[in-house]
């Protein structure tokens, strides 16, 4: 198991991810520059948050053209693990590795706050340890986080259990009031059909330290190690 974090011009959550991945794995984390085509033996690829290429054209639209993304697509097609957080989720949707798109928030504003996530499928490599609470407090920080896909795609995601996280209230209830950005059906995070590619708008890597007074995000990463050990 080897973790790698991709860095695009404009990525700004790469160090948060590297920090938490080093902490949970106890090993070094490979930094993969967007111009790289060699994934350097990484088994787990993370696409971090930020504003790759200044969000020009659409969030993630230019990043998907980076040389490294061809290698990431091949890695994913071979069943390799890929996880995109925030801008990383946008990039994976733009790349076609995940269905749907992230649109401008319903209320136009950039939203930076803690939200609660209900885990809808605990049978995946990132969510297998999210079983002890009705919901997990994780921050969001985005302007384009309104998940959208057509009805047929949403139905397929529901039927397959590909919707992993929904925005909820502090009791784990999913309702309109707990939807911060207007996402379809409160969707905050999804997986692909093969459950090896994940995307989520909230930032578990920003909630994985006692210093930050929130460690709810740690389990998203330690779950990966458990899976490996099992």
């Amino acid at each position, binding site marked *: 198991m080897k973790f790698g974090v991709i860095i695009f011009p404009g990525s700004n959550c790469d160090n948060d991810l590297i920090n938490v991945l080093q902490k949970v794995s106890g090993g070094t984390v490979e930094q993969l520059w967007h111009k790289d085509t060699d994934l350097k033996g990484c088994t787990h690829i993370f696409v971090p948050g930020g504003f790759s290429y200044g969000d020009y054209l*659409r969030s993630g639209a230019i990043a998907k*053209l980076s040389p490294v993304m061809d290698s990431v697509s091949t890695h994913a097609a071979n069943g390799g693990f890929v996880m995109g957080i925030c801008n990383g989720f946008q990039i994976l*949707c733009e790349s076609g590795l995940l269905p749907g798109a992230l*649109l401008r*928030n319903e209320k*136009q504003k950039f939203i930076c706050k803690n939200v609660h996530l209900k885990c809808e499928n605990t049978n995946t490599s990132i969510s297998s340890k999210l079983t002890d609470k009705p919901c997990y407090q994780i921050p969001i920080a985005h302007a384009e986080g309104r998940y*959208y896909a*057509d009805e047929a795609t949403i139905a397929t995601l529901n039927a397959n259990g590909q919707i992993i996280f929904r925005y909820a209230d502090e009791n784990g209830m999913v309702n309109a009031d707990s939807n911060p950005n*207007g996402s379809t059906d409160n969707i905050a995070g999804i997986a692909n059909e093969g459950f090896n590619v994940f995307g989520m708008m909230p930032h578990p890597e920003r909630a994985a330290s006692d210093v930050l007074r929130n460690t709810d995000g740690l389990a998203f990463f330690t779950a990966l190690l458990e899976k490996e050990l099992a």
Partner: protein
Amino acid sequence: MNYEVSVNIMPHKGLLDPQGKAVHQGLNKIGLNQVHDVRIGKKIVLHVEAASADEARNIAEESCKKVLVNAVMETADISVAELA
């Protein structure tokens, strides 16, 4: 030949366009109540070297499909003009 290709991109009709909604409210606020809907898209202008207008259009269509337009959320109209 050189062509100027205009790509007009709009969000899908059924999709909420919060920018358009905010601008619509602004126009109504200054008394322009005749405006009953606003939707905001973008225009991208390409200068293309091609043997014909059809070829220029094909290049623009490929650009749209691969980069300029996300079909999940947008549609595009393309118009081609020959440059003198």
